[in-house]
């Protein structure tokens, strides 16, 4: 996730004039990286777990604490506003939840408005799963007549001027024609009625999760009192998004006020709830996970550098207050990682444990390696190809019709299926090297995938070997001799035979099945002119393909 902001504005928020180098070093230790600096414009990459750092305010807050300019839990007092949201019936299956906050007297300007829009987009894209789970709206507080109603409405009866437009549109038109409607419309368009936010003067705030109205939803540099609303389908996601948005705006000196949400089933929420959640961590847990023997005072200090509240409870136990804007704390291990970050990764000395094990290769890797050595001895050049290929190469050009494992969402048809044989892959390689010196002798050892309804993942992955010779003249007898050499050296003397076979890819009378211990394991022969033409190969080719047993038992 990239956060774009202005360097001077960021340094002002941090409250200390640190050098770009120091900033970069600090961010590096905080999981973030400076991606680009262009004059005063700076791009910072933030890890997706730190949704609270998706704004300049969030980054500044983290840097400030890490550098000791402020420490511990940021104070975010919330006062009740007494304003209400009334939730209508029928939203349960569409978009049931709403949470709101008010920020009064924030010092904002045009630049900041852009940053908030950016934060809102990033948050709803990742945390809100492209607005499905949660979407955010900001409004001019003073223009709203409370209470606000969050209710369902017939799409045709929804009429307002969408943000940035000049004329009134109805619901279906917005979905069809507005750019946001086209992107996010599918979230609600399947329902008969759509969610709507409307105030007591019948002024529409927004059509969640699509678009705000131009009347109430247009924040400018002159707006100092802001109303924030988050709707969605998942309670923790909705509440966390509101907390992050509210905390970011409040960094600009605003006072936070809460709003009462009244649900049709009688449930009442008072949001935002910025009370930290409490967890207990002890020194042993920290030592077990990090390998650092830290005293409670050190742990508390590290936690405070990471914006946590922390106090010692005695006997190595520490009570930790987790800020309400942290969405990523699921388990104590998440707090302990932050202790490591707060302690400083640059202060941690690596150690080398004495875990005693003996290493070994898989038997199939040893078999593959042996075969590679033998093929090289016969004079073949190893190649490595993609596992993915196309039906055109696997079937059409080969004159085959074999079942393939297909992907549903390939970026190109060229790489849309898994190879079910190596021979087409090598023929394709040959066709691309018509200009290279002859003779050409190439081989590949690698896995192929064939459908198998009975298997756990509905297919079998088979290790295979394919060798190919192309020259002005080729001879199937030479190839038989080479395959014989390989099989004998795999300990299969007297265990294999070649049996004449008709195959649509090979010249009749010059093709044989490779049979090992009475099981068909492969094929060899001279490639038919029809197939050569299909691959646009101008020279004759002999080839063989052999399946290998994964457990090395033939």
């Amino acid at each position, binding site marked *: 996730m990239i956060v774009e902001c202005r360097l001077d504005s960021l340094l002002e928020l941090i409250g200390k004039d640190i050098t770009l180098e120091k900033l970069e070093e600090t961010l590096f230790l905080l999981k973030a990286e400076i991606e680009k600096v262009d004059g005063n414009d700076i791009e910072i990459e933030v890890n997706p777990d730190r949704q609270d750092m998706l704004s300049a305010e969030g980054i500044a807050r983290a840097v400030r604490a890490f550098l000791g300019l402020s420490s511990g839990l940021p104070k975010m007092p919330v006062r009740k506003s007494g304003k209400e949201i009334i939730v209508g019936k029928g939203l349960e299956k569409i978009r049931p939840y709403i949470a709101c906050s008010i920020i009064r007297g924030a010092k904002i300007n045009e630049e900041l408005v852009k940053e908030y829009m950016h934060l809102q987009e990033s948050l709803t894209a990742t945390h809100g799963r492209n607005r499905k789970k949660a979407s955010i709206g900001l409004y001019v507080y003073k223009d709203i007549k409370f209470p606000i109603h969050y209710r369902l409405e017939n799409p045709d009866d929804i009429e307002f001027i969408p943000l940035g437009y000049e004329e009134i549109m109805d619901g279906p038109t917005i979905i069809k024609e507005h750019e946001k409607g086209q992107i996010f419309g599918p979230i609600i368009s399947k329902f008969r009625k759509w969610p709507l936010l409307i105030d007591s003067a019948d002024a529409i705030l927004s059509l969640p999760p699509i678009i705000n109205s131009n009347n109430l939803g247009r924040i400018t540099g002159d707006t100092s009192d802001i109303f924030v609303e988050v709707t969605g389908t998942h309670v923790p996601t909705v509440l966390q998004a509101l907390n992050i948005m509210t905390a970011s705006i409040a960094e600009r000196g605003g006072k936070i006020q809460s709003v009462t949400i009244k649900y049709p089933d009688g449930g009442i929420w008072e949001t935002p709830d910025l009370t930290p959640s409490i967890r207990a961590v002890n020194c042993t847990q920290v030592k077990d996970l990090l390998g650092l023997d830290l005293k409670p005072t050190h742990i508390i200090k590290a936690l405070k550098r990471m914006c946590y509240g922390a106090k010692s409870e005695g006997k190595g136990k520490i009570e930790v207050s987790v800020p309400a804007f942290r969405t990523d704390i699921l388990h104590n291990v998440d707090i302990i990682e932050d202790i490591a970050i707060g302690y400083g990764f640059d202060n941690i000395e690596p150690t080398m444990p004495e875990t005693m094990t003996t*290493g070994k290769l898989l038997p199939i890797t040893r078999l593959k390696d042996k075969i590679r050595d033998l093929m090289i001895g016969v004079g073949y050049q190893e190649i490595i190809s993609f596992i993915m290929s196309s039906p055109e190469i696997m079937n059409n050009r080969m004159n085959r019709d074999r079942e393939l494992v297909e992907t549903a969402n390939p970026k190109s048809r060229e790489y849309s299926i898994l190879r079910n044989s190596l021979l087409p892959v090598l023929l394709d390689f040959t066709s691309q090297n018509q200009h290279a010196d002859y003779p050409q002798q190439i081989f590949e050892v690698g896995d192929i995938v064939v459908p198998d309804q009975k298997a756990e993942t509905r297919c079998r992955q088979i290790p295979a070997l394919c060798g190919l010779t192309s020259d002005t003249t080729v001879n199937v007898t030479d190839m038989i001799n080479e395959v014989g050499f390989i099989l004998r050296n795999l300990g299969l003397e007297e265990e294999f035979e070649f049996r004449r076979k008709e195959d649509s890819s090979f010249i009749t009378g010059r093709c044989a099945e490779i049979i090992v211990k009475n099981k068909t394991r492969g094929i060899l022969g001279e490639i038919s002119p029809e197939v050569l033409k299909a691959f646009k190969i101008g020279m004759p080719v002999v080839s063989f393909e052999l399946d290998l047993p994964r457990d090395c038992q033939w």
Partner: protein
Amino acid sequence: MNEQLTEGERTVLRGLAEMGKRVQSSVLAEQLEQNEERVVSILNSLAQRNLVKLDIIEIVSYSLTEEGKKYAEKGLPEKRLFDAVIKLSGKASMDEAVTKAGLEPQEKGIAISWSRKNGWLGIKKVDKKTVLEAKREKVDAELEELLEKIRSNEDIPKSLSKIVKVAEDRKLIKSSITRKFEAEIVSEKKKEISELLEETIDGIADLTAEILKSDKWKEQDFKPFNVEIDPPYIHYGRKHPYAEFNDWLREILIGLGFTEWFGPYVETEFWNNDVLFVPQDHVAREEQDQFRVHKPHTHGDIIDQKHYKKVKKVHEDGGDTGSIGWEAPFSKEVTTRLCLRSHTTPVSLRYLSEHRESPQKMFIIERNFRSETLSARHAQEFNQCEGIIMDKGLTLRDLMGYIREICTRVGIKKMKFKPGQFPFTEPSIEGFAKHEKLGWIEVAPGGVFRPEVTYPLGIKDSVLAWGIGSGRLYMAAMGIDDIRELYSRDLSWIRRKYFIT
């Protein structure tokens, strides 16, 4: 320098010595019944050894043009016209003379023009008729003589050298330059040469079983061969350089006590994501990132129902792990969905499900898939090298130690760590290596598996997981900046590229 002579050098040198004078290479070649080019090439090498003096002479030779050939046969038009006039008693009408001379229409103008220019004939108008009159009794036609000499390949005498220019201007002859080589023995080296020639009169070319048996080699020397040639490129069988690189990584990991393991390309999302505690609605699981399999089957099986139930619970509310989980319902449809594995970590979990007792070390170097468009920076397939270490009491510091050790063995001298983020490890780290040209590059991600990942398997000991950006390392080592070259389809390129540690 080797003072001995090769067979070819010996033959040419002897031939030259026997002729005992300065000779042209063509003459020597004819004498030796050899190709002239080869003889020149050998003379050159003898000249480099200062045994032979070799001069290059540029010789101008002339040949007849089509027009010149015609005149050489029939005579010059102006001469023929003059002769006709003489035969007609020194004076004749134009038509009469031309008919008598047998001139073709295009020759008429040439004949009149040159006979006047040479002062051989005069032209007068008598009774409205054009009359030709001889001004001499006899003329010398040197030009005819020149053409004849060239036609019969004779030397051109000095006396004719002036007329050569006229013939060239009239485009009757053309010149060409040929290079001739003349060689002679360097007289001061005569003694040395005769010694060299005598030294091995009958050397052994191929040592045969017969020669060995008869002990003939004791009486004869071996003919020397040119052993200082620049060998041409020949394509014998060899490994692919990227395969060799991966072989080398395997060797290092075996040395560190890791056991290789296998897992399939086609996976259920259960193994690819859910056992790794990736939330079911995570963006990385969406269609634009991860390949879904839709034919011939869309969903697979969950084999271990006990494991499945625990994983489901962990996602929903954290189960007995101390986690709050994802606080969302867990879908069986999603977990059984088939995909192409997007990383090798499911293989680590498959290994752990079969090896739940400490200590364990496992690794895999294999292919993974992401729905990307093929470009210089991205491919739909990439190799990952990763592994796990499970033992009692392992910590983040041990993980750093392992990663540093592995990186040292692959040749990374300087590295640093920063905190990282992966859904299945906590803490997570990223190892950066200092590369000479590229600066700090991210090469080694890692972390300690979350309890949400290990507890469902009943594993309470720490499991450290690490990866190595093997593709990135290989590209840095080979000076490759286009990822498509890892799987190059260019045979000539593969034949010449090599990997050395």
